[in-house]
């Protein structure tokens, strides 16, 4: 259920984000629903198979979408499957998608694909421990390892949750390939991370990739929403907040130098560790 919801929402979110950024930059910008049209257009096109590529070239966008989609299914935005330890399956399904994507980037033997591949690898290594630690801390504080049973932010767990939210927000930026980690609008191959891996994918394959990237962003937003105390309104609230924040950040911010990434992401890991320690040692404000 959540998966379908996210699938439908993702193009709207990314499309309207482009519109928002254009507005902030005093441009007219595309229609907020542009991404639906774009995806539809791409889906109908033919696709190019680079010479010498393997079946993975085709499998990767599929797996990427499925990984994110199935991960979204575990998100209790709408009622769905739930069991102890489901958040781990969620995180690792995201990994599954990325694994294929990063691998396929090496498939064509292109210089940029390879570059994108190892850059994305670095990002994943930097972001993953923080994410898992933050979610684990939340689970510990809630007394259950099932996402559906996460208790919302309250007086008691305020510090732990704040730390977890910091970690997850940073993870959202990194995994969603947004500024300051990655610049989704760049056209210079040398500076790309996410886009460099998609250079050779075209038509429907590109559509799947685009869709899964948008969904991934929403999955992280959904995770963040779980920790907030607004009940059913949490998810829309987070989406709105993220929409505004990303629009602002990507208009006024600059991309961080790639080699400085670890500096930024160390806050992610540190918050995660502190969050977990906070539960164990019963940090209170």
């Amino acid at each position: 259920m959540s998966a379908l919801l996210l699938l439908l929402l993702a193009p709207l979110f990314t499309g309207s984000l482009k519109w928002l950024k254009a507005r902030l930059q005093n441009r007219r910008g595309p229609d907020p629903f542009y991404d639906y049209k774009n995806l539809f257009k791409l889906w109908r096109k033919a696709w190019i198979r680079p010479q010498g590529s393997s079946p993975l070239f085709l499998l990767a966008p599929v797996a990427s979408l499925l990984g994110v989609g199935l991960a979204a299914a575990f998100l209790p935005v709408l009622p769905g499957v739930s069991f102890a330890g489901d958040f781990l399956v969620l995180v690792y399904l995201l990994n599954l998608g990325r694994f294929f994507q990063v691998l396929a980037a090496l498939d064509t033997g292109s210089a940029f694909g390879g570059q994108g591949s190892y850059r994305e690898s670095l990002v994943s290594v930097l972001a993953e421990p923080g994410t898992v630690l933050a979610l684990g801390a939340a689970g510990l504080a809630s007394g259950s390892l099932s996402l559906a049973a996460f208790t919302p932010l309250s007086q008691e767990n305020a510090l732990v949750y704040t730390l977890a939210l910091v970690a997850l927000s940073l993870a959202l930026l990194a995994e969603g390939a947004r500024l300051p980690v990655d610049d989704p609008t760049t056209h210079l191959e040398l500076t790309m991370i996410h886009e460099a891996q998609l250079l050779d994918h075209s038509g429907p394959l590109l559509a799947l990739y685009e869709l899964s990237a948008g969904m991934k962003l929403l999955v992280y937003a959904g995770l963040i929403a779980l920790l907030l105390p607004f009940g059913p309104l949490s998810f829309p609230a987070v989406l709105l907040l993220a929409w505004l924040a990303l629009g602002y950040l990507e208009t006024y911010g600059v991309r961080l130098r790639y080699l400085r990434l670890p500096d930024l992401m160390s806050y992610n890991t540190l918050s995660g560790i502190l969050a977990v320690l906070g539960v164990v040692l019963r940090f209170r404000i």
Partner: protein
Amino acid sequence: MNPLIETALILLGLQSLLALLRPPAIGFLPLSLGGSGLLLLLAGLGAWLTGTWGTPLDASAGFYVALLGALYLGVGPYLREYLVHHEPHRARLEAFLLPLFAAAMVGVLLSPPGYTFLFLWEGMALLGYLLIALEGPNGLVGSRAFFLASRLSGAGLFLALILLVRKEPLVGGLGHLVWAGLVLGFGTKAALFPLHAWLPKAHPVAMSPLSALLSGGMVKLGLYGLYRAQDWVGSPPQWVGWLLVGLGLTGAVYALARGLAEEDYKGVLAYSSVENLNLLLAALGAYFLLPNPLFLLAFFFHQAAHALFKGLLFLGSGTLPVRELSRLGGLHRLLPRTATWSFLAALTAAGLPPLAGFLFEWYLYQGFLAAPQGTGAHSLLVLGVGAVALVGALGAVSYVRLFGLTFLGQPRSPQAGDAHEMGIFGQLGMGVLAGLLLGLSLFPAALLRPLEPPLYPVLPLFLALVGLGGGLVYLLSRKPQRAYDTWDCGFNQPGLMGSALTPEMQPHALGYSEQLLRLFPFVELEAHLSREGMLSPPRVRLEVSDWLLALEARLARGYTAFAHRVQHLQSGSLHLYLLLQFLALLFVLGVVWR
């Protein structure tokens, strides 16, 4: 003893004898080694699942027998095809020694602690050494490292088991001494950090089927011993648990990072083995501290999974034309089946759901997350979560790098364009392991039944992935498509010279991980620029400097220097010798008059 196991051992013995014939009878290998594998698998699983070997601890031997059996089942047919390419003299020796090695491993599992156990343990080391040494000059360093470590392990076990065999009460420090011996003995074999150094030296140089047996099977015996020792000695003291968790997690991260700095395909696999083993040791150590069944589930399940996927990967490595990643590439075209098998194994190794590797991490996370229910310092084990997450992420990168650089892209050297797929027996061997791996992934409960495992919905997830994925792929493949060159920034215009991309533009094996390695202070990459002539393009050579290996080398140098100093006693001077004799006499007289 179980008649199935007896038959299996007899089969192995017969194969050894047959190998001595001229020409060596290696044709029987699928039947003898593979057949014994099947028997062992059945017998072991029977014992493990029904607990017929007595206590749960006892039944664990059955688990390991089955694990070895599964490997033999795959290696048997594979070896038959592999040995055909060796010169007869060498093939004979290998076909003679390898079944004995296999039998010794099973024998260890069947022996109670004592003389027979040590006999087989050291015998196993000896056979393993000879098998590696047969590689000739290339195998020198590796076989030596293997044998030295094995003897170190043997020394630890001698200490522990002899104290046990004596049946004296283990009072005072003796209990601790026994455990120290066990940790040294079994830990060395199971590549416990920092005693693991031998493994990445030895496993890569062994022939591939042997590497599969070593990495998949033999090292597990160290884990078996540490687990089983509870049965022999009683529960371990606290420090054992902390040591295993601490060193295990450190070692896992170290090994992964170090593996990223490795250029040798089998070297990467070896470091991955170190990583997996250390994580397993950490799981066991955590189990010693907090007897949470989740740790036990993680411990057992992943041993089976690791045996299968690592066995499969090593068997696959036997097909590669060269081992250096920086000379491989694009092999999926020449070796489509090997690529498929290896891909399945790599997916598992990367810990991705719904395959077996993920379940391990799933159990491990939950186990560590349950730690705060413990008291005092134990609750700090929860930090293990971070380490496991880091390991998970690094593991995935490591296998992307390994598989991607080897099988995808363009060949990086002429040799990589000249590879040959294994024939029917080779495919059979890999296929068996792949099948078992898939079975294990989809039906983990079948193996874990005795431990009553909690599970996530594995099968539905798998079906959803395969079903939806299959559907999407079907749709996509029916869409119009055409082949074209890879994107090269538009340099490839009609009338120009073709694609501007060359294989050298792909990521280099070390370049791929260079930036990741900056995160880890213990492995350093140094870039050396060199230029052959004024006009030739500069070449970058990356050198790996490893803090641990440097320390090891320094220790070795120090020991050698010390030995040289002692050697001065034998300086050739008769007068000195006579003086020594005189002093020895004075010394003894001193003892007498004391």
